[in-house]
């Protein structure tokens, strides 16, 4: 009697979790913008045998954005997931893997990320500030002012904006703009930049030094600007990351 086909894999089986871990590491390692994502739930798994010790595995994953930028060397296990009240961003990913002789490898992945619904958050937390579009005028002004302020005080390299990652505007009780953005060190000192900022270019890949800044601009009742930048130091990039400075929307983004 032919052997009964193996029972379908459950989404919480150890093998499914192992495949999901490989998939999430691949997605974070090949993501060029925004933040690292952590696994929240394995929605579905489908195994298509291809032959002895050779399976195709189709995963549907539900991910949640963490507070670690993709450029950060922080291991994912140390990255905290954005809470519901912080206005979480969810990622839905379809990943195709191959399991050959017990080893998983990702063949393709497609993800769509989107911020949680603002209405749901306001219902639970009326005073929680919500994410705003990253090309909001106040956001752009805050990032420019924060980067200028940081560069005017630093004794290190002059920093250029890579991308804005996240922004929120609180209007009550004070009017506050909070932003997070990625930066890259240039070949200029801050002094040199004062002379001719056009000459200041991002360092070449073999010397690149990226970092991340958080800025808070209080507009009312009084004006105040706080900015803090953390540089990661030179890292050998796992994948070439386009250094174009981009502004993209938290509302949704497709990556493949």
């Amino acid at each position: 009697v032919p052997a009964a086909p193996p029972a379908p894999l459950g989404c919480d089986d150890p093998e499914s979790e192992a495949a999901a871990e490989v998939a999430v590491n691949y997605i974070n390692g090949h993501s060029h913008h925004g933040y690292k994502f952590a696994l929240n739930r394995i929605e579905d798994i489908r195994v298509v045998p291809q032959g002895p010790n050779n399976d195709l595995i189709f995963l549907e994953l539900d991910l949640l954005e963490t507070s670690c930028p993709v450029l950060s060397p922080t291991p994912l296990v140390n990255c905290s997931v954005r809470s519901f009240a912080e206005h979480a961003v969810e990622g839905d990913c379809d990943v195709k893997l191959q399991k050959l002789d017990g080893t998983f490898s990702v063949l393709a992945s497609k993800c769509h990320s989107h911020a949680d619904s603002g209405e749901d958050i306001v219902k639970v937390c009326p005073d929680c500030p919500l994410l705003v579009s990253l090309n909001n005028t106040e956001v752009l002004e805050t990032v420019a002012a924060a980067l200028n302020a940081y560069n005017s005080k630093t004794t290190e390299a002059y920093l250029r904006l890579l991308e804005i990652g996240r922004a929120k505007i609180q209007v009550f009780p004070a009017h506050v703009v909070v932003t997070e953005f990625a930066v890259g060190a240039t070949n200029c000192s801050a002094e040199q930049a004062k002379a001719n900022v056009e000459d200041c270019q991002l360092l070449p890949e073999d010397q690149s030094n990226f970092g991340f800044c958080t800025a808070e601009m209080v507009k009312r009742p009084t004006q105040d600007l706080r900015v803090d930048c953390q540089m990661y130091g030179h890292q050998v990039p796992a994948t070439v990351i386009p250094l174009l400075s981009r502004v993209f929307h938290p509302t949704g983004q497709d990556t493949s």
Partner: protein
Amino acid sequence: SVTKRAVAEAAQHDKVPRPVGFVPPPPPCPGRIRHFDI
């Protein structure tokens, strides 16, 4: 003669008696939520 039994009756008779306290296994998917559901 073959008579068509009411579905409920048939289902009643065909239902496999389950041991007392039987808990059906959780559906294989979707899996558990690790942080929170949005």
